[in-house]
């Protein structure tokens, strides 16, 4: 059974040959090439730091890229452009075709070349430009003709009030703009991507440029309304506010300002930098100038709140106009249809994606192959959340996915209860209900079936008569049963041993997390009081991360130990485990012992310890990988 997971110990010659090519210089070239050509900012990440361990084991890294929905949108736009370069029929048309073909450009081109052009266009709802109007013509018009009637709301223009109507470029079915906007809103709410003209006989699909015009119109109108409202509010502001109103106003601003102070400083998030931020800021700043910032009374997780706020902001932006919503729908649809290459970050309130880019290996091509080799596709999203690309759970390295699954199931179900029963009880030979002997002689009477038997040999008590105890004589059958029982007992002990280590580490992990969260808010307090810049306390946050990650890795390394064949040498693994565990405890102690206000003075100590932990972590990961792929240890019970 273990054969499947134990990968050949002798290196394949082909593999060795290729891995020479994968030296680091080549990779850098690869990245630089991408940099120039495809996108402005390409950050290719790898699931493992090096392509070869110090022992020379290839790590078959998975290449991936943390992206946001906006990044994916950009790449879709590129795809549209590329198609247009081939077909030369206009960007809008290409986009509709790609949506219709689920972004499968190969199938699209095949159909394009094999079918008659006219039929092809007609089937796609793109009518060729036979009676097209000129480009860039305003599709919005003010209709004053009183005989005109919008076929949705049946309104007609009057002499005083002309009706604003909108029509598609290629058809002649004008409807009033409001109706059109509502129609698209509804289609957006249903994530409809191919929106056709509201007229029932018309097969035209709305193009992006047309949606854009309506979207722009809608946005301008709403902006106007907002401005009007603000003006009204200003008028109203001259009236003195009641006490409650003041309180409400300022308390709300205080919360906002807490976060907006830091929003510029958050690092490592590319999606955050955007134009609309400045718009929002200018709104906020007006009101918070004179408000004194009190330290937040309740304890909160700073990072999680930041994340939530960012997410809300992004969602607001995505829903802000008809066009942005439409594009967002198109992109998420694309991602969910290509779910093999895109995974959503599983952390709560995180909406980043991870895009798989292939493998840094000549022998591994798919994720299934990758996990079959017991490699772990642990990835990091753009918010630095670590998770497993395969099982979409929190990162569980160095424990392979298959074992995680086994282990979790084992911990959850009562298979261990069954083990205990097997190890400590015997079944009644007649009705097979389990019986535990907790004292007394060997003459057993089953409670449920009243059968009398001997505890030692499990035979009918009658054959023992009064004195002839023949069960002391050796018999093959019973001996085997005993061996089985012994084995079960050992397995249970082994499980309990590792489970205790695992559970212990898990509780430490949770406790540390809680403790450090509280600590963090105190750090913020100090920072406010002593005007230390945010960047100077960054080391603290980083050390926390390292500590928690190390604890998690340690935890999973115990789980894997249970599955290692007892005949294999474990000293090496236990050695690295021991080192890491020692380092982790030392760092944890430093956290616990250091007073909050002394933290900064201890900075070098923190940095020192955490870098030690980091080193041990890497070597732990590497050792496990070496041992598993080179067959030094074999995994059983899988």
């Amino acid at each position, binding site marked *: 059974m273990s054969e499947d997971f134990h990968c050949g110990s002798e290196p394949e010659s082909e593999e060795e040959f290729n891995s020479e090519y994968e030296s680091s210089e080549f990779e850098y070239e690869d990245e630089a090439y991408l940099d120039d050509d495809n996108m402005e900012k390409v950050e290719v990440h790898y699931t493992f730091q090096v392509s070869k361990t110090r022992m020379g084991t290839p790590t078959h890294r998975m290449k991936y890229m943390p992206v946001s929905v906006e990044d994916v949108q950009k790449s879709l736009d590129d795809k549209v452009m590329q198609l247009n370069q081939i077909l030369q029929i206009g960007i809008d048309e290409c986009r509709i075709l790609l949506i219709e073909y689920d972004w499968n450009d190969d199938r699209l081109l095949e159909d394009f070349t094999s079918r008659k052009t006219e039929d092809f266009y007609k089937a796609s709802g793109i009518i060729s430009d036979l009676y097209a109007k000129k480009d860039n013509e305003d599709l919005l018009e003010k209709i004053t003709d009183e005989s005109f009637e919008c*076929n*949705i*709301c*049946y309104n007609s223009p009057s002499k005083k009030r002309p009706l604003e109507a909108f029509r598609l470029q290629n058809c002649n079915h004008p409807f009033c703009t409001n109706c059109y906007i*509502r129609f698209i809103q*509804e*289609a957006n709410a*249903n994530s409809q991507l191919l929106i056709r003209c*509201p*007229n029932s006989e018309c097969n035209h699909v709305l193009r992006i440029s047309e949606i854009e015009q309506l979207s722009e119109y809608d946005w301008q109108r709403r902006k106007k309304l907002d401005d009007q409202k603000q003006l009204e509010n200003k008028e109203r502001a001259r009236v003195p506010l009641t006490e409650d109103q003041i309180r409400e106003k300022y308390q709300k601003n205080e919360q906002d300002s807490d976060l907006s102070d830091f929003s510029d400083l958050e690092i490592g998030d590319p999606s955050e930098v955007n134009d609309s931020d400045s718009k929002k800021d200018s709104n906020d700043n007006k009101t918070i100038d004179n408000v004194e910032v009190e330290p937040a009374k309740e304890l909160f997780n700073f990072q999680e709140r930041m994340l939530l706020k960012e997410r809300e902001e992004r969602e607001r932006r995505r829903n802000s106009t008809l066009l942005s919503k439409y594009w967002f729908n198109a992109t998420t649809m694309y991602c969910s249809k290509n779910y093999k290459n895109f995974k959503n970050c599983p952390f709560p309130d995180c909406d980043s994606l991870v895009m798989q880019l292939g493998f840094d290996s000549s022998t591994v091509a798919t994720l299934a192959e990758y996990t079959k080799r017991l490699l772990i596709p642990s990835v990091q999203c753009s918010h630095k959340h670590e998770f497993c690309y395969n099982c979409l759970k929190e990162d569980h390295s160095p424990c392979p996915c298959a074992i995680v699954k086994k282990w979790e199931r084992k911990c959850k179900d009562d298979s261990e209860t069954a083990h205990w029963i097997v190890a400590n009880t015997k079944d009644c030979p007649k009705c097979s209900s389990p019986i535990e002997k907790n004292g007394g002689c060997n003459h057993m009477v089953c409670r449920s079936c009243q059968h009398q038997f001997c505890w030692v040999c499990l035979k009918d008590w009658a054959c023992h008569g009064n004195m002839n105890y023949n069960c002391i004589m050796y018999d093959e059958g019973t001996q085997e049963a005993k061996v089985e029982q012994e084995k079960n007992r050992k397995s249970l002990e082994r499980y309990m041993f590792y489970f205790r280590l695992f559970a212990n580490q898990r509780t430490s992990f949770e406790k540390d997390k809680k403790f450090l969260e509280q600590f963090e808010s105190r750090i913020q307090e100090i920072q406010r009081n002593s005007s230390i810049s945010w960047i100077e306390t960054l080391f603290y946050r980083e050390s926390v991360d390292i500590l928690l990650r190390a604890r998690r890795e340690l935890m999973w390394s115990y789980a894997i130990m249970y599955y290692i064949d007892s005949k294999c040498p474990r000293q090496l693994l236990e050695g690295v485990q021991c080192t890491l565990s020692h380092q982790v405890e030392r760092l944890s102690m430093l956290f616990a012992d250091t007073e909050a206000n002394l933290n900064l003075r201890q900075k070098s100590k923190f940095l020192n310890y955490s870098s030690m932990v980091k080193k041990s972590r890497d070597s732990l990961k590497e050792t496990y990988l070496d041992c598993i792929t080179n067959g030094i240890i074999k995994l059983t019970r899988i």
Partner: protein
Amino acid sequence: MAKRDLRTERIQQERKQWRKDHPFGFYARPTKAADGSLDLHNWVAGIPGKSNTMWENATYPVTIAFPEEYPAKPPKIRLPSGFYHPNVYPSGTICLSILNEDQDWRPAISLKQLMLGIQELLDTPNPTSPAQEPSWRAFEKDKVEYEKKVRQQAKVYADKH
């Protein structure tokens, strides 16, 4: 800006149009609420079977409910539950592409078009998307039995002369 209720406005227009001009044999009107006032969002209507078909000489009653999003979303039109027709669900809901927002519903489809569409569907069912078993099976396998059942049903909804 006082938000105009597009749904009500559109329904009123539909009502006006219907009064002005509606196909022969059809009727459609808003129901009355318990207090005697008109309930514009729920209508009752009758669709006559086409003459010279097995559906003739009967008017089939339907209920029409206009959802809040109407006309962006189609109205819900139902025949009596248990209606015998291959494209009518046991609940009475009609399976017709122009009544489905994911398919062919467009905001510009008028009540008249819907009514005529349903009348058309009565005699030309679409066996490729069956919604109930008995009538679909009969339609596919046993036309005599199908016609018998349809005529029986027509008697139930027969026009009173």
